[in-house]
């Protein structure tokens, strides 16, 4: 399973890439592999307020549907509309396929997330 340095990770297998005060969210290589072929992504609305741990979308595969939880609170400022027509991009390039970007309310929430090394250890514990 690919885990990238420089990203933050949640226990729900989401990755976060921070750019300034903005965080791009996606699901990890492990998550896409566990879900199998992804067939549908429900994106949040731009401008929507999200709380820490709240659902901001749904990722549906041939096996199951999973909520996408925002590990950070803030306002949705960008959504990746390309995924509506090409949800399989998440399977192909999980770390390129960001789902939404959130303008952070509280950058300190980032401290609750794991770095790459901790996430690798977390995955080993899950297996």
């Amino acid at each position, binding site marked *: 399973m690919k885990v990238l340095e420089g990203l933050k990770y949640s226990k729900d297998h989401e990755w976060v890439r921070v750019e300034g005060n903005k965080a791009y969210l996606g699901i990890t290589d492990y998550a896409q592999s566990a879900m199998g072929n992804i*067939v*549908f992504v429900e994106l949040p609305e731009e401008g929507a307020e999200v709380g820490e741990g709240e659902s901001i979308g749904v990722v*549906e595969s*041939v*096996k199951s549907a999973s909520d996408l939880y925002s590990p950070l609170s803030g306002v949705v400022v960008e959504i990746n509309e390309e995924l509506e027509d090409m949800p399989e991009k998440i399977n192909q390039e999980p770390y390129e396929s960001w789902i939404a970007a959130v303008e952070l309310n509280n950058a300190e929430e980032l401290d609750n997330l794991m770095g790459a090394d901790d996430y690798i250890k977390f995955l080993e514990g899950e297996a």
Partner: protein
Amino acid sequence: MKEKKLIFELSQPGRRGDALPQCDVPEQDINRLIPQDYIRESEPQLPEVSEVDAVRHFTALSQRNHGVDSGFYPLGSCTMKYNPKVNEDIARFDGFSKVHPYQQEEMVQGCLELLYRTDKMLSEITGMARISLQPAAGAHGEMTGLMIMRAYHEQRGEGQRTKIIIPDSAHGTNPASAVMAGFDVIEVTSDERGGVDLESLKAAMNEEVAGLMLTNPNTLGLFDENIVEIANIVHEAGGLLYYDGANANAIMGISRPGDMGFDIVHLNLHKTFSTPHGGGGPGSGPVGVKEELVPFLPVPVVEDKGGTYFQDYDRPLSVGRVKSFYGNFGVIVKAYAYIMSMGAEGLRNASETAVLNANYIMNELKNDYLLPYDRLCMHEFVLSAQKQKDHFGVSAWDIAKNLLDGGYHPPTIYFPLIVKEAMMIEPTETESKETLDGFIEKMKHIAQEAAKDPEKVKGAPYHTVIGRLDEVKAARTPVLKWERLG
């Protein structure tokens, strides 16, 4: 059986299966009878086949179904037990099948008495005070139960209780019903034995929590041994306990949700009480409640006034109607017939046998597949294909497809979500040891094949009418309608 052509493709212009008699009334111009807007401009493209071809076509279609009448159906959490045909005979009695819901009550006393008696029997089985037989299916029962929960809290001036706690092993319908009923959902984790984690539950309880929804035994097929303590934690914080009866086939006549501390219960008559299940229903999801919640039950409630039965609508605290007329009546008749033919001993025996059958298969297969929670199971259990996936790239999905080739309906796969590569197997009580042995043998064979020739296993099914589908294409661009080219 192997005929794959659609009936439209069998069609030959001019071929007929029947000859209409000569018209014996004067012909009228259609334009004078029907407004122009409603007259079609082109011929309807109906298939033209002979009678025998039509009969063969529909017979072939019926043979492509897999039902409990055609083979073993161990679909976990769905309790696909055999549906005794005596139930059907009784539901077709003229007195049940030829009544009209608008008939006067004095003309349908037998039907009302049956509803009243079914209420009493299911109340006894679940340990509840009263049952409403109105909800049309399990999720409808959940919705109704949650409406009752809300009405109860609001009547006590505790309308701030807007949250429902649900374990991570729950059926997907639980959070969906809670959200539909206007609640927010809090998820609690499972402990290492597969039960509700008590510390997580305690931490989640507060004055905003309306209640806990729980399936016991849960979706791992495990009985939550801490149920009394769980009930105390929820009740002490002012919440109610909701029992999802999906797995009631494990406990009939042995233990009762009411005695465990549950306040609201739904049952699935189409699972536990042997009415037909699958194919879109109809189902029936009765909801039972403890004494203090009886005023909130949906209207009408069938009551007995000195031997005369009537439908009571005068219930000011009721959550109102949840279904037109009175539930799916024919289904209730079948469940009544089942309970009467089984008797109390028979129901207990059914649950005991269901549990025995599940434990038998589990023990026979636990060396071939990973058994994540290795303890005595109830009426179902969850295996994992993780070993096969890690070593040979063979997934639960592939194993399910191989079972199709053996003439078995696959188990529920990829559920519950807390077990990877889950395969949830529920044999039910109505299967013989020989049937169970046949299934065990097939599962062992698949495990051996996975090690020897994984590519073959990944290509199954080979012997079904349709081979493996492109699941992504089926989900994203399904073609559901036949159209003539050009």
